[in-house]
């Protein structure tokens, strides 16, 4: 046991080198940085839009349009004594996104219940998303303007009636049910909440598994390259200690990376959503979500953790076996490509496809890949479908046991030193190992 820890310490040290840590740190910082930038730009786009208004009517009603825009958070450049050309030129010079021109006779026409036109000019300075959201924000405020004037018109024409009823005689009251529990909330709000809560999970899983595979394949190949593996194999430490120390070290280090990435991701997502869905967000949504039981309990997190750990072990064992075929570090990196595909498939599918409703072929493919179960675990647990999660964990355990046995067998035999893949006919006979 002491020797196992000696080996473990050495493996962790070999992994925690600046070459390994630096890319990870940069990745995490980049994520947090991008999240913050995108988030603050997004906030700017929600609140900081500017609009130029040319009021040719100069009445109380047209003044109200200005007021509504100002109160909606727009920076309004309000003019009454320019021509249309002049204000558009001014807006172009000052890069104001939108120009609104309220025509003369706006209030008069409204009084006669005639539809009025406000001219909206979008001035293009670039095609960024925020430029478009600026225009959309103007449209949204225009509907607030509409709402206001329509209520005014209705209460004038049909006094004593509620304009809201007149406009929408039929409304829906939205409920969502899950396993006999019901909450007063719309399905859009539920999916919105769940997506923001879970969208970073697959990315993190993907990164951990990939980095763990890479680490172990590289360490085993570099030991072969430096002949330290031969030395190690001739010492009195057991082969199984060598295998498990390598796997544990790579597992630990990738969990460490996972934690770092989780923090980065958290920043990234908080930045993106401006913390919209964090606990302090919309309280009616979060209380409805809690009533539905759409939250993860500590046992749920434990199940996700177990599933993730098993996935890491599987990836490590496969990489260890593949790394054993490689003579040097470069070849090792090439050899782990198959694992990347095995992870890529469930990763992409979990993002774009609902496996539950897809065809049997795809279902079988997904269930056969051991990594899929980790990708689907968090969703299943949100929906309190414990059965597939437990099944997945059992299935993954079988993989782990089988792979560790194979890996230990390779290390026990002398195949670890003699087998290699050259993809030539002659040497392929050498890989027939069992």
């Amino acid at each position, binding site marked *: 046991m002491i020797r196992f820890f000696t080996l473990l310490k050495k493996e962790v040290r070999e992994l925690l080198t600046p070459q390994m840590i630096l890319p990870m740190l940069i990745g995490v910082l980049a994520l947090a940085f991008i999240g913050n930038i995108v988030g603050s730009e997004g906030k700017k786009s929600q609140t900081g839009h500017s609009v130029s208004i040319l009021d040719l009517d100069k009445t109380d009603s047209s003044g109200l349009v200005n007021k509504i825009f100002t109160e909606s958070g727009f920076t309004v450049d309000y003019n009454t004594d320019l021509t249309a050309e002049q204000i558009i030129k001014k807006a172009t010079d000052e890069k104001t996104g939108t120009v609104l021109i309220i025509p003369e006779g706006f209030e008069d026409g409204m009084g006669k219940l005639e539809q009025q036109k406000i001219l909206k000019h979008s001035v293009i300075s670039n095609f960024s998303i925020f430029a478009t959201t600026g225009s959309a924000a103007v449209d949204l405020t225009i509907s607030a303007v509409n709402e206001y004037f329509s209520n005014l018109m209705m209460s004038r024409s049909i006094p004593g009636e509620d304009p809201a009823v007149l406009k929408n005689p039929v409304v829906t009251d939205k409920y969502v049910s899950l396993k006999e529990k019901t909450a007063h909330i719309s399905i859009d709000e539920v999916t919105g909440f769940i997506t923001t809560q879970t969208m970073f999970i697959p990315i993190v899983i993907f990164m951990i598994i990939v980095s763990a595979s890479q680490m172990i394949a590289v360490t085993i190949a570099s030991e072969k390259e430096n002949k330290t593996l031969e030395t190690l194999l*001739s010492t009195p430490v057991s082969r199984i200690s060598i295998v498990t120390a390598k796997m544990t070290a790579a597992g630990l280090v990738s969990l460490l990376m996972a934690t770092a990435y989780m923090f980065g991701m958290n920043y990234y997502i908080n930045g993106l959503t401006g913390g919209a869905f964090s606990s302090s967000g919309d309280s009616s949504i979060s209380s409805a979500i809690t009533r539905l039981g759409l939250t993860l309990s500590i046992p749920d997190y434990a199940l996700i953790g177990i599933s993730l750990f098993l996935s890491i072990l599987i990836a490590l064992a496969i990489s260890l076996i593949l790394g054993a075929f490689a003579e040097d570090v470069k070849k090792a990196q090439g050899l782990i490509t198959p694992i990347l595909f095995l992870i890529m498939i469930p990763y992409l599918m979990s993002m774009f496809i609902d496996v539950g409703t897809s065809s049997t072929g795809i279902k079988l493919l997904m269930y056969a890949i051991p990594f899929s179960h980790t990708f689907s675990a968090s969703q299943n647990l949100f929906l309190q479908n414990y059965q597939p999660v437990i099944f997945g964990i059992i299935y993954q355990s079988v993989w782990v046991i089988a792979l560790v046995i194979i890996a230990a067998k390779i290390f026990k035999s002398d195949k670890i030193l003699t087998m290699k893949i050259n993809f030539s006919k002659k040497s392929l006979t050498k890989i027939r190992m069992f």
Partner: protein
Amino acid sequence: MDNALVVQDLEKKYGKIKALKGINFEVKPNEIFALIGPNGAGKTTALRIIATILKPDAGDAILYGTSIRKNPEQIRPVISYLPEEAGTYKNMTGFGYIKFMASLYTNDPKLRQKYLETAFEIAGLEGRMNDKLATYSKGMVRKIILARAVMTRPKLAILDEPTSGLDVINALEIRNTIKKFAQSGMTVLVSSHNMLEIEYLCDRVAMINKGEIHKIGTPSELKSEFGSQNLEEVFSEVVK
């Protein structure tokens, strides 16, 4: 028991290549015994089998009565193996490497301390032991690995081309260390393709070519038998 190591009919194939075609030799206690032969002769293969990291297809080697084939776990604590062109863990310091390797051989802190002292004395790398191994020269790496290999005072030290690629001075130092340890009670099995150098080091040599041993004897015996000036000439006669 008058032999330290008895090698019996060792055979090894890699795919279709027959690397060893049944070799036999004996090594006496405290002797320095060399396997000499050209590239591809099968030296490394033989040493790896005796070091328990390759399994023979046939035959066995017996170290003080214990079969390397049946009981490799009992062999490993009492041998040490220095692979051909061996490297180290580049991120470790010289001190860290010796300490790590010593911990693999013993859990006893006192014994480990003794190993460390022995290793530091042999390596003779004063002032550099706390530097990363990545900064060591080839000669320094070889010294530290040799120090590691002999610090546990193994019953059998298996050294694959311990001096290859080193300059004259470094090679001499390495040879002196090996000789010193053999005199103080350690059996050594070395390999080399440098037949001139090996005369100065070994008590007896076995000439191996294409997986077969052709001749065994002390350098002077072999030279007088063939009336040659040196072992290279003997070898070219033997493989004719």
